């Protein structure tokens, strides 16, 4: 099984690649449309700026193929900014459209909490999901972000609170996303990635 890791030009890909390789998954950096089309599963990793992310996808012609993959129900995992990009838009780049798989707007964390939200936090599981199967309820995950999608978004299966309740884990059909960094979240994070890899096999 081959997983395409979308390379939009700014993400820290080696840690995601290493984490997936440890689980026995074969990965490939996807920089052109045919790689998205031929992949059996797609990972959208992401750090950096929402505008740079969507521009990176657009310049490489990947926006259309990613939307087609979504329509076809191809397994996909968004990480951090990769999750945010699945929504319609973000406060971080008001003029730029996201992939639009979900209609909500990604919002800036409010001024009454420290931003970025950096560190290890726990989740509130709101629904059963493939991604969080076997994960203890009190497990910690590593977050590093200044923007987040509201937990009221329909695909939310686990929420976290920092300024407002936000979507920490989303899942709908074969589409999945995590606001935390599973590749930086120790053994618990590795378990989340394992759940993803197993779900596409």
């Amino acid at each position, binding site marked *: 099984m081959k997983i395409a890791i979308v390379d939009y030009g*700014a993400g*820290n890909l*080696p*840690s995601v690649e*290493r*984490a997936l390789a440890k689980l026995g998954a074969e990965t490939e950096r996807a920089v052109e449309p045919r790689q998205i089309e031929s992949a059996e599963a797609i990972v959208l990793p992401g*750090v*950096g*700026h929402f505008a*740079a992310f969507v521009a990176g996808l657009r310049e490489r012609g990947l926006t259309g193929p990613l939307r087609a993959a979504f329509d076809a129900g191809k397994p996909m995992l968004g990480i951090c900014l990769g999750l945010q990009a699945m929504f319609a838009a973000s406060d971080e780049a008001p003029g730029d459209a996201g992939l639009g798989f979900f209609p909500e707007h990604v919002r800036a964390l409010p*001024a009454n909490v*420290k*931003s*970025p*939200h*950096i*560190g*290890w*936090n*726990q*989740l*509130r599981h709101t629904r059963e999901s493939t991604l969080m199967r076997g994960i*203890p309820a*009190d*497990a*910690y995950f*590593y977050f*590093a*972000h*200044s923007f987040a999608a509201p937990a009221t978004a329909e695909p939310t299966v686990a929420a*976290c*609170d*920092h300024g407002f309740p936000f979507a920490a884990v989303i899942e709908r059909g074969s589409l999945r996303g995590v606001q935390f*960094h599973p*590749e*930086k*979240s*120790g*053994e*618990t*994070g*590795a378990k989340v990635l394992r759940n993803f890899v197993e779900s596409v096999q």
Partner: protein
Amino acid sequence: MTLARRIIPCLDVDAGRVVKGIEFEGLRDMGDPAELGARYNREGADELVVLDISASVQGRATFLETIRRVAEKMNIPLTAGGGIRTMEDGRAVLRAGADKVTVNTAAVQRPELISELSQQFGAQAVVLSLDVKRKGYSWEAYTHGGRTATGMDAAQWAAEAVARGAGEILLTSIDRDGTCSGFDCELTARIAQVVPVPVIASGGASTFEDFLAVYTDGRADAALAASIFHQETRSIAAMKQFLAERGVPVRTSR
């Protein structure tokens, strides 16, 4: 559901080895960075900081190789810095596998460096390393590894750096560093009050009580120490248990 206070071991690296400064003796070899990093990762550290203390241009390639070797062993966040002068230095450190980069001297000389790094890699990837000495009722920022006074008020500089896009402050008390007399909680609380980003306290740690104090009185989001962990006199797991029993939220699961 609570954001855990982080415990962060720090590796001071010179020529590819972890070192510790000893009074009158110079540097003592404390081991291999990748081995020590792997040990801390296994023992429950919440993050690892690797600093190039030689920060020489010649040593840069060696340091990047060290980051690469350490990053391979990590499934927790890795922060690296020391001698970062340009955007390209920062990019190289992140490309080598660090999640965040620290800046100090070059950012004081040219604050735009912070804005540039932040715009390119995001605020969560840019850490202002702030070395300070007490001066009357306030603190002064120092550069060049604590050797050069800047004349700048530490709190003001911290606020400016954050406004320019720094996502975290690594705050080191030069007065306390190496003294084993505890963190400067007054300093940490002061800076934590003026900046809207997480503050990592550093300098002076020697006991579990020091960590407890800096998370409570000092209002620190994270605390960093080097030698107390290297010497295996204090285990991270035991420290976390001590803190948890006293009501400090810490990550106990792996």
